[in-house]
């Protein structure tokens, strides 16, 4: 995650409005994308975007800079999203779910090689909608790690810092999330290849 050097952290912490506006401009698109992917809903994504920067503004005087600014904002936004998801579905969602390796259920079953499909088949609105549907099938734990790490491009270490979990837990969740999504998309593209008769 690249940090814009133009942001003066000392001024930001002491309440400089121009620096705060610069921070909002620098990170608002990234936070919006994260929230939209997490919630799958534009209104909730906007609510999380606003809550994130309101909370950040209140907490800035105490920001110690142990993590970088982007990681800190992602943590606030992720927590907001996870709280909302937990309220919606209190039984199945817990940030502290243990990783249980013996519950390995990502044995691949789809072996269609759809990588060779032309770009005009891969980059369609229908495919993008399918990406959202597949993401919805992941538990919040797997979804959050996948979004931070693979969609928003944070490193394993940064993702661990954002979620306050170990790097090993990030790697385990990432592998499971990636394989589940691959399976879902392979199933979709398998049908699509049959429809269009692509060989």
């Amino acid at each position, binding site marked *: 995650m690249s940090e814009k050097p133009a942001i003066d952290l000392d001024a930001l912490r002491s309440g400089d409005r121009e620096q705060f506006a610069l921070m909002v401009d620098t990170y608002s698109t990234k936070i919006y994308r994260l929230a939209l992917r997490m919630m799958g809903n534009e209104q909730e994504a906007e609510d999380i975007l606003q809550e994130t920067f309101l909370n950040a503004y209140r907490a800035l005087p105490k920001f110690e800079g142990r993590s970088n600014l982007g990681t800190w904002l992602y943590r606030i936004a992720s927590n907001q999203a996870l709280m909302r998801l937990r309220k919606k579905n209190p039984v199945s969602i817990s940030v502290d779910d243990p990783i249980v390796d013996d519950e390995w259920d990502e044995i691949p079953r789809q072996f269609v090689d759809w990588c060779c499909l032309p770009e005009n088949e891969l980059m369609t609105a229908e495919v993008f909608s399918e990406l959202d549907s597949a993401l919805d099938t992941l538990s919040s734990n797997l979804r959050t790690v996948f979004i931070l790490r693979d969609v928003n491009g944070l490193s394993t270490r940064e993702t661990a810092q954002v979620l306050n979990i170990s790097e090993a837990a990030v790697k385990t969740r990432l592998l499971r999330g990636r394989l589940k999504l691959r399976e879902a*998309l392979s199933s979709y593209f398998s049908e699509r290849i049959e429809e269009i008769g692509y060989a």
Partner: protein
Amino acid sequence: MPEHEHDCSQFLHLVSDFIDDNLDDLTCQEFKKHLDECEHCRIVVDTTKKTIDLYHTSNEEIELPTEVRGRLFHCLELDEYLEK
């Protein structure tokens, strides 16, 4: 994959580390050798990479709507910086 199921399940646990280039040289060589011999595992690796790529690319298409940015700046009382 069915012919070497035991081997494949071992390699399956390394798919992420292989994609992220986190394997040591020896393990990476063994992994690549297995991919040369096992079409199913090769497809799993290739389609997993493509899955990640699709999500990443589709995310880059998402822009912050102008009206959402406007409401954000307003709620943060940053209206004077909106056009900057």
